[in-house]
């Protein structure tokens, strides 16, 4: 027993130490080997759920890519390294990826601190860092090897503001936002747009990610006497806020950013999220063929499980990566250049996606105005609640 343990331990540590050196001597252009993407993301730690969702989206996309003949006849695969979304680990992973010649580009990391800490390493080594959930405004400023399909908040928030102010006729708003780089940036774009549409911002409240109790925050919101609540939240905290808002006696219309869009929002929120309005990039009842294909495939592969937005981001990212690799081949520099060349890649979030070479992001996310009715997301019928 202990013997086996010791042996596997030594083996694995040797493997780790030798990883770089041994691999660099391995045949690089063996066409029977799959083309390999590196993924740096959380599989353990507080954000572990998102890494799991990424995998589901990636695997579905890869099945479809393989069924369609792969990348010029070769398989596409990924190597997922668990970073816990911790900058210390994401920089080590970055070194691992850049020195592994099999890796042609990298996807991730999940959070901005982890991604942006690794950016200098990717940039200097000339390996694309494709941060498909990194909406931090500075992420793509890290260098010309940083690309993102994350919807820029500069794009998304004005759409939500328009929905709330023009669509629902709300004029005095309370904004609750996650106090992270994402929530803060989103809030600023939202507030700016909402004011331009003529609304007044009565109060803004930022809360930390671990927060569970919002009752006192909501009393504060109640005292500001708004006619609408804007949630810039993820689905779990969004559901908590909605539930507690009803408990402290707030009956105002609630309007939430696309990040709450998940079946989990309905499950966790229960009755309290009824009539919550959501502006979203992704809606499964969207009749567009790319969306329907994604949903049907997802349900089939995962025993009827409903996909959510993070699944869709990952699925889109993998398809985008495949399209880029198809043009760029296996050369890292050529892959970077290929990002500027891909046109109209079929995408759940964007319809068709093309990069804006200046910002290295995709513009023109799809927008659906939804409302929760009878425990389901439904297209908004145009009537204020």
């Amino acid at each position, binding site marked *: 027993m202990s013997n086996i343990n010791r042996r596997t331990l030594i083996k694995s540590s040797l493997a780790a130490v030798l990883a770089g*050196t041994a691999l660099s001597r391995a045949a690089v252009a063996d066409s029977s080997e799959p083309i390999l993407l590196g993924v740096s993301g959380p599989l353990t730690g507080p954000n572990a759920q998102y890494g799991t969702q990424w995998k589901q989206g990636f695997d579905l996309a890869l099945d479809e890519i393989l069924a369609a003949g792969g990348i010029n006849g070769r398989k596409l695969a990924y190597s997922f390294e668990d970073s816990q979304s911790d900058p210390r680990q994401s920089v080590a992973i970055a070194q691992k990826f850049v020195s592994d010649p099999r890796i042609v580009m990298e996807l991730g990391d999940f959070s901005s601190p982890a991604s942006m800490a690794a950016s200098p390493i990717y940039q200097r080594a000339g390996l694309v860092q494709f941060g498909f959930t990194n909406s931090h405004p500075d992420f793509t400023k890290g260098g010309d090897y940083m690309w993102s399909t994350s919807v820029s908040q500069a794009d998304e928030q004005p759409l939500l503001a328009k929905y709330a102010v023009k669509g629902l006729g709300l004029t005095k708003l309370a904004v609750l936002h996650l106090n992270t780089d994402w929530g803060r940036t989103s809030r600023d774009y939202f507030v700016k747009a909402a004011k331009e549409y003529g609304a007044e911002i009565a109060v803004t409240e930022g809360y930390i990610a671990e927060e569970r109790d919002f009752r006192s925050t909501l009393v504060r919101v109640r005292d500001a006497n708004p006619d609408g609540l804007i949630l810039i939240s993820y689905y779990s905290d969004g559901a908590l806020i909605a539930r507690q808002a009803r408990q402290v006696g707030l009956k105002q219309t609630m309007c939430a950013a696309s990040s709450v869009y998940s079946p989990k929002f309905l499950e966790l929120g229960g009755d309290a999220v009824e009539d919550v309005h959501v502006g979203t990039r992704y809606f499964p009842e969207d009749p567009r063929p790319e969306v329907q294909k994604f949903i049907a495939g997802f349900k089939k592969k995962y025993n009827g499980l409903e996909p959510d937005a993070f699944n869709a981001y990952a699925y889109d990212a993998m398809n985008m990566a495949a399209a880029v690799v198809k043009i760029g081949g296996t050369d890292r520099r050529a892959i970077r250049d290929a990002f500027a060349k891909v046109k109209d890649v079929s995408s759940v979030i964007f319809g068709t996606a093309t990069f804006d070479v200046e910002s290295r992001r995709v513009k023109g996310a799809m927008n659906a105005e939804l409302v929760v009715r009878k425990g389901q997301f439904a297209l908004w019928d145009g009537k204020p609640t």
Partner: protein
Amino acid sequence: MSSWLDYTINGLIVGNVYALVAVGLALIFGVSRLINFAQGSIYLVGAYIGWVAVVQLHTPLPLTIIVVAVAAALVGLIIERFGLRPLQNSVRIAPLLATIGISFVLDQLVMLTFSPNPRALPSQLPDVRFQVGGGTIGPLDLLIAGVGITSAVLLFVFLRYSKLGWAIRATAQDRDAAMQMGVDVNRVNQAVFGIAAALGGVSGLLVGMYYNQIDTAMSLQATLKGVVAEVVGGAGNVPGAVVGSLLLGLVESYGVAVFGTSYRNLFAFLLLVLVLVLRPNGLFASARQAPPEPLTGTFIAPSRPVRVPRWALLVAVGGFAILPFFPVSFYVLQTLINAWLLGMLALSLTLVAGTIGQVSLGHAALLAIGAYTSALLSLTLSVPVGLAIIAGGLMSAALGTALISPSFRLRGHYVSIATLAIGEIVSLVILNWESVTRGPIGISGIPPLSLFGYDLISATSIYWFSFAVMVVLALLQARLLGSHLGRSFRAIRDDDIAARAYGLSLNRYKSLAFIFGGFAAGVSGGIAAHLYSYINHETFNTQQSILALTVVILGGLGNVVGAVVGSVALVGLPEVFRIAAEYRILIYGIVLLLLVRFRPQGLLGTI
């Protein structure tokens, strides 16, 4: 103005939620003088067992509570029997570390079984609500209050009037005397852990129902809030834990009312520091309570430190210095860079925790101060990076020592809790002080490391740079420990009363240790900032502080070489187990437990 009634009610409601965790912590602290960092994990286990009972087995509420209580109690008994009892005669800090290891293992087991996705845990009580003030109260609020207060009252009666209760109190007062009087100390411990775990499990269930939401990340927050509430009330005092929890809930609620949501936890931790400074034993500690014992000092296991021969050290330093000339991958170098940065932090902590006996659980704050100082100086004032890093070190030394100085008069576990609070406060100030720190957006575009105008951007040059800095800091520290000053430090650790009687000024020496330690940690944070080019308030978190403590205990408290060896081991282990992906933290937790069990004085022993 009517809203103040609502703030009060909300504060009491969330205070009740904290009380559920704090009561279990207080009970264990009362008997074992141990802060059980696994209490939050038992709470997590309780919530998920509750989910299975409610959603899959459809048990009625009373049965759900019984199932959860019994199952959680079993987990508690197993922890006591196999995790903690073998550590009875080892260093006093060993069981604390073991509970951290156990919490890793439990959290990870739950995550592997149930996946990290949050789940809905529906309340089994009818959804009627009573109007109170502008808000409402539901049956679950009342049930939580009922469970919190009833369990505190029952425990109080049990401890005061039952035979087992007497045995528990006797053990708490003087373990050896109790044993001589025929008290079966092990049985007492088991009873306490069983009861505390049952309470912890039920609290997880109720809180899960209250929020209709459970997820695997909820355990650390529960532990943190529970510990704060417990210490505010008076560690080990069961009714005090309830009052402390309600007070914490109220302070948070009023804090939100006056200053806004983003200041919420800031007030919780400020309350804690305030109570510790004004009433070091908590608000409700009895005057007769024996003063807490130092965590290290006389309780350091009688071990002989492993003397690493000078030539072996020279060979090791030389070997690491020439490593980049061999065909090693950048990944290995980067991993070692992380180890050197952690090594500097560990040197800092091993000095204050090991040599002078101030166990700090908030050491990441020193990293953060150094990192922000260095990043801001080089970005906004264009100070050369080398100088900025030194300035970061000095700022950490000055500010860190000033912040921690109120805790100098504390002893035992209270020092660790005060430092834990200070760590959180620094992080929350960084989040809220936007005009300087840029708040949640963080600082991006930090210039890369450079020395005399040359940028150090290759992994090799960063490796050499960080290694050299660490070696210099280690040599300085070794020199310090060998000097008269080092002997004074150890004298304070071993017996502060004797040291004071001998004329040593405790505060002055503690300050000196923190100044040197703060400098080393600040330099580490500064280098990290330039290495990452982006930092925000989450870059240096509590987990980092716990990791640093693990490193110095693994290496051997106060042991300079041990701190470095521990860093290499603990940065290396997770990387070695990287292939195990999801099982990585589980393996790490188990390895930690085994080390604490079989080598509690650390790999190289304590100096």
